């Protein structure tokens, strides 16, 4: 609306200026006209009077003509008629109101008309008609007419002009305000609201202004922009969804690869109870077995089947592709979760795992299954780094002094560390540089996908953390997974 006000004020100023100039000129013209009319009228009267005065002067003398003038004076209400001598040093009653220097043309028998102001500040129109007396002296008939009436008239004209200008300004302002609000204010508000909605990412509602003015054009442009943004956003969402799906597929296949690595250990876990079940079943089928032995075998079969079910459940829960769900979870529970899956492999590879469990109450907001995937990756790598067995440590602890990478730098954030340390072969610096690259592997063909660590890094990054590695060839490696400490939430 401010623009409307500006334009209105500019237009109003122009109108007032034009009106004022026009009024001023009109009034001036009228004044001139009035003056001319008055002057002509005075001259006519004066000429009539002069004829009579001259005639009287010749026939009856000076006294009679003066008396006539006095009488004539009484006949005009607005005009004062007087006899004056055009000579210096005479009494004021017979002296002209203006200095004689203004009346030199009287000597050439010309009538003189001029304006003069009295001592009281009143304006007069003075008309002098020369009379050459028989005695040779020059006299004149002076007609003086007050201009007050004309002043009043001009004042009135001025007042009317001012009134007209004022009324025009007021009605113009009101009209501009009303029309400005309808033609400019309302569409402007609509467009602004739409621009703000689009700015906040709300592309749901369109705006359509009717008509063919600039606002309608602008609304069309905004509408096209909104449609393009909607399309762009949809395309982006589709791309993101496709990316997430691809990542999820990749993670799932990596999870299955991890499962393959664990399968040798799991075979033992399943093979032994299966052996017991098969054997017991066979025993029960033999002749001459006592009912008590049959009952015992049945119990053992049941127990072994339960044991196998438990193992199957663990495997399935790990292998199942699940929705990524982050929730507050105790760190030591995540650590414990990987042990049953890893135990057989540890046994097989003659690796001792030392567990330094995190204290209770150390909570991170995480998808526990994904973090277990990360830990399993690191632990299996550690086991593979110790082909002749050895010992490794899985530790969880608060890490207040952790130094995050620059993109995560947040002075208030507190961190939790999950650390896997092995006494394996270690890694050379050139290997260390690439370990998080996808498809980078030092293992033999078929032994690893080269995706484990890159996926682990992706998962940890998604949780707002990072992985640090320290390694020395021949001495071992240490992987530290840093995650933001979850404060204030309830543990799961």
């Amino acid at each position, binding site marked *: 609306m401010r623009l409307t006000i500006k334009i209105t004020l500019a237009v109003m100023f122009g109108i007032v200026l034009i009106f004022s100039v026009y009024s001023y000129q009109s009034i001036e013209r009228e004044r001139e006209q009035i003056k001319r009319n008055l002057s002509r009228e005075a001259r006519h009267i004066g000429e009539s009077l002069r004829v009579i005065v001259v005639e009287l002067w010749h026939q009856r003398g000076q006294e009679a003509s003066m008396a006539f003038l006095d009488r004539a004076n009484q006949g005009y209400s607005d005009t004062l008629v007087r006899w004056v001598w055009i000579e210096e040093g005479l009494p004021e009653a017979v002296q002209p109101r203006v200095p004689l220097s203004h009346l030199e043309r009287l000597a050439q028998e010309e009538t003189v008309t001029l304006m003069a102001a009295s001592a009281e500040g009143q304006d007069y129109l003075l008309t002098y008609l020369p009379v050459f007396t028989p005695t040779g002296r020059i006299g004149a008939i002076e007609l003086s007419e007050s201009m007050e009436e004309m002043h009043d008239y001009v004042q009135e004209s001025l007042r009317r002009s001012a009134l007209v200008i004022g009324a025009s300004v007021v009605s113009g302002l009101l009209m501009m305000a009303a029309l400005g609000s309808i033609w400019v204010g309302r569409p402007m508000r609509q467009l602004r609201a739409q621009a703000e909605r689009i700015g906040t990412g709300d592309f749901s509602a369109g705006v359509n202004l009717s008509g063919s003015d600039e606002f309608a054009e602008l609304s069309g442009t905004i509408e096209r922009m909104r449609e393009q943004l909607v399309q762009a956003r949809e395309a982006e969402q589709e791309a993101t969804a496709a990316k997430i799906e691809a990542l999820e597929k990749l993670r799932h296949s990596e999870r299955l690869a991890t499962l393959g690595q664990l399968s040798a250990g799991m*075979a033992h876990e*399943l093979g032994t109870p299966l052996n*017991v079940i098969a*054997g017991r079943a*066979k025993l029960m089928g033999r002749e001459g077995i006592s009912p008590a032995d049959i009952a015992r075998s049945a119990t*053992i079969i049941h127990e*072994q089947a339960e044991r196998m079910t438990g193992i199957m459940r663990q495997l399935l829960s790990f292998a199942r592709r699940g929705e990524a769900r982050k929730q507050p979870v105790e760190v030591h529970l995540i650590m414990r979760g990987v042990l049953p899956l890893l135990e057989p492999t540890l046994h*097989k590879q003659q690796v001792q795992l030392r567990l330094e469990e995190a204290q209770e109450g150390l909570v991170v907001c995480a998808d526990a299954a994904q973090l277990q995937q990360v830990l399993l990756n690191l632990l299996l790598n550690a086991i593979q780094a110790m082909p002749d067995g050895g010992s490794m440590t899985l530790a969880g602890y608060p890490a207040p002094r952790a130094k995050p990478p620059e993109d995560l730098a947040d002075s208030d954030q507190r961190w939790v560390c999950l650390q896997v340390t092995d006494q394996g072969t270690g890694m050379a610096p050139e290997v260390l540089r690439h370990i998080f690259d996808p498809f980078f592997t030092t293992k033999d063909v078929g032994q690893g996908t080269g995706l484990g660590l890159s996926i682990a890094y992706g998962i940890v990054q998604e949780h707002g953390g990072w992985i640090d590695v320290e390694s020395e060839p021949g001495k071992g490696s240490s992987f530290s997974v840093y995650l933001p400490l979850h404060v204030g939430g309830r543990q799961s």
Partner: protein
Amino acid sequence: MEAFCLDLSPRVLLAEDDHELRELLALVLEGAGYQVVQCDNGLQLLGHLERTDDVAAVISDLRMPGLGGLEVLARHRHRSRQCPFICMTAFGDELTHNRARQLGAAEVINKPFDLDEMIALVERVCLRNQETSGVKQ
């Protein structure tokens, strides 16, 4: 005491960390006429091997806490008194089998196995051992 023992049934050392499987095997072997000495880890098995003379056969799991079957084999192979080893494993890959055989295992059997198959294996191994001992004598 052992010198006067008239029990002529052949003695079998059985090492398996899973209690249920061990008990089942012992039951079946005893039923087949063997005298069974049970161990639940490799160290115990090694001790029995050092102390016991007349062992007809050893049945050992490869994966056991502490000392595994392969380690027991490796330590025992240089002893003068040889007895046949039957190794049980759930990691039935070629590598494990070869490794066990290289270390002197007479047979390697994959879990899960048939109990009758195990008895037959023990009988065959004992017979073969008796024959080779007889030739040596």
